[in-house]
C-alpha cells in the first residue's frame, strides 16, 4: 500500500497509509477499535476502493480491477471472518465443500478427500456432519479456517480471529495460524487488537492509529517503542494520547446544571 487515503462519510479513515506485507510471513495489523483495521482488509480484498493511493496485490492495482478480475483475485485469497460467517443452512462438511462445488467440477470422491484433509488440519474431522449452530465459538472459527484454505489460497486474511475465544480455543487458533502459514507456504495478514496473542505469532507488526501506520517492525521492536501512542496501545495504558474520557463539558459545571 502506498499513500493510501480513504474517507467514510466525512470521516477520514486513512490519510497516507504505507504498508508492505512480505510474502511468506505472518503480518499483524494492530490498532485500537475504530482505527480502520477491517476497512484496511476490505481495501486489500477489493470490497472497498481507495480514493487515492495504491493497493497492490501481487503486482495488480486492486482499485483498478474489474468485478470479474476482483473475483479472480479473491480465488487466490482466503478470509477468516470475526464470527466465522459459516453458511447456517449447510453442515460443516458442506460449508468446507462450498467453494469447491462453486468453482470446480471435481468428482465427489475428490471433494470428500479435500474436505476431510482440511478438517483433519484443523482437528475437526469428527465434526463433519454437525451444523454450525452445534459448534462452539472456537470450533466455528476452526471450520471457517478450514473453508478459507480449501482452495489452497496464497494469502490468508484473519479479521479479529481471537475475539470471544476461551484460552484453549485461542491457543489452538494461534497455533493454526502459524502452522498453516508455514506448512502451506502462505502469506498471512492478521488484524487484531489482542497485543499479547498477536505478537506471539507474527513475524511483523504494523500499528495503525489516526489514519496512519505509526509503528512497524518485529513484534519486540514495536513493543519496545518509546512513541507515546505505541506505548499506550502495546502496554494497555488506560490514559495517554487516547484519553480515558470521551470529550465532554467541564464535570463540575455539568453536575451543577439543573438540566
Amino acid at each position, binding site marked *: 500500500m502506498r499513500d493510501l487515503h480513504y474517507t467514510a462519510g466525512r470521516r477520514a479513515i486513512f490519510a497516507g497509509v504505507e504498508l508492505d506485507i512480505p510474502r511468506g510471513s505472518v503480518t499483524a495489523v494492530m490498532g485500537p477499535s475504530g482505527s480502520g483495521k477491517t476497512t484496511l482488509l476490505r481495501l486489500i480484498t477489493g470490497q472497498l476502493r481507495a480514493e487515492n493511493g495504491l493497493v497492490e496485490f501481487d503486482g495488480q492495482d486492486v482499485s483498478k480491477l474489474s468485478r470479474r478480475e476482483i473475483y479472480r483475485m479473491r*480465488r487466490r485469497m482466503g478470509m477468516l471472518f470475526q464470527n466465522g460467517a459459516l453458511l447456517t443452512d449447510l453442515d460443516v462438511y458442506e460449508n468446507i465443500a462450498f*467453494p469447491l462445488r462453486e468453482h470446480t467440477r471435481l468428482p465427489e470422491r475428490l471433494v470428500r478427500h479435500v474436505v476431510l484433509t482440511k478438517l483433519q488440519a484443523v482437528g475437526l474431522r469428527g465434526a463433519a456432519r454437525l451444523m454450525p449452530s452445534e459448534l462452539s465459538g472456537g470450533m466455528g472459527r476452526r471450520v471457517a479456517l478450514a473453508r478459507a484454505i480449501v482452495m489452497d489460497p496464497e494469502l490468508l486474511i484473519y479479521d479479529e480471529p481471537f475475539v470471544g475465544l476461551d484460552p484453549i480455543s485461542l491457543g489452538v487458533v494461534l497455533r493454526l495460524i502459524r502452522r498453516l502459514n508455514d506448512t502451506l507456504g502462505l502469506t498471512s495478514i492478521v488484524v487484531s487488537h489482542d497485543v499479547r496473542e498477536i505478537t506471539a505469532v507474527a513475524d511483523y507488526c504494523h500499528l495503525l492509529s489516526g489514519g496512519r501506520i505509526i509503528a512497524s517492525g518485529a513484534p519486540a521492536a514495536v513493543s519496545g517503542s518509546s512513541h507515546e501512542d505505541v506505548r499506550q496501545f502495546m502496554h494497555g495504558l488506560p490514559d495517554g494520547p487516547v484519553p480515558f474520557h470521551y470529550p465532554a463539558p467541564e464535570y463540575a459545571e455539568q453536575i451543577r446544571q439543573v438540566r
Partner: protein
Amino acid sequence: MAAPVIHELVASVRESLRALGAYAIFAVRLARETPRALWRFGLVVEQVHNTGALSLVIIMLSGLFVGMVLGLQGFDLLERFGSEESLGSVAALGLLKELGPVITALLFAGRAGTALASELGLMRATDQLAAMEMMAVDPVRRVVMPRFLGGVISMPLLAAIFSLIGLFGAQLVGVQFMGVDSGQFWSQMRGAVELDDVMEGVLKSAVFGVACSLVAVYEGYHSVPTAEGVGRATTRTVVISSVSVLLIDYMLTAVML
C-alpha cells in the same frame, strides 16, 4: 414557515424516486441472471419447497375459509334475487379472478416474503454474504436468484390451490349446508367460467409472484446488518408487498376488463 415542510417533501419524493430506481436496477439484474439461475434448477427447486410447499397449510386453510365465507355471503345475496343457483359461477369467478391471486399474494408476503427477507437480512448481518463475496461467489447469483425464482414459480401454484380449495369451501357451504342444488352449482360454474377468466387469474398471480419475491429479496439483501435492520426489512417487505399487490391488482383489472 412552509420552507421546511417543502424541503422535507422534496427530500421524501427524491428518496422515493431513488428507492424506485434502485428497485428497477435490481430487477433488471435479476432478469439478466434468470437464464443462468435456471441452469442450476436444483437450487430453485429447493426454494420452491421453502417458499411454496411450506406455505401450503396456511394457503389451504385460508382458501377453505374464504371459500366458505364466499358461499355464505354469496348465497345470502343471491337468495334476495332468487338466483342462488348462480352461486357456483359467482364463487368460481370471484376466486379465480380476484380472491385467489390477491389473498394468496397477501398471505405469501406475510409468510414466505418475510421468511425470505429475514433469512437474507440475517445472512447479511452475520457476514455470510460477505463471506461468499470473499470466496468469489456472487451472492446474488447463488443466494438471491434461486429464492426469487422459487417465489415466482410458487405463487401461481399456490393461487391455483387456494382457488381450488376455496371452491370446495363455497360448495360445502352452498350445497351441503344451504341446500343449493349440486348439479346447478357445478353446471352454472362451468357455463360462466371461460378460459380468459382462468388466464386472468394466472397472469395476476404470476405478476404478484414477481412483485412479492422482488420486494422480499430486495429488502432482505439490502437490509441494514443489525437486529433492528433485519426487523425493519421484514416489516417493509410485508407493507410494500401488500400495497403493491393491491395497486397492481387494480391496474391489471382495469386493463383486462
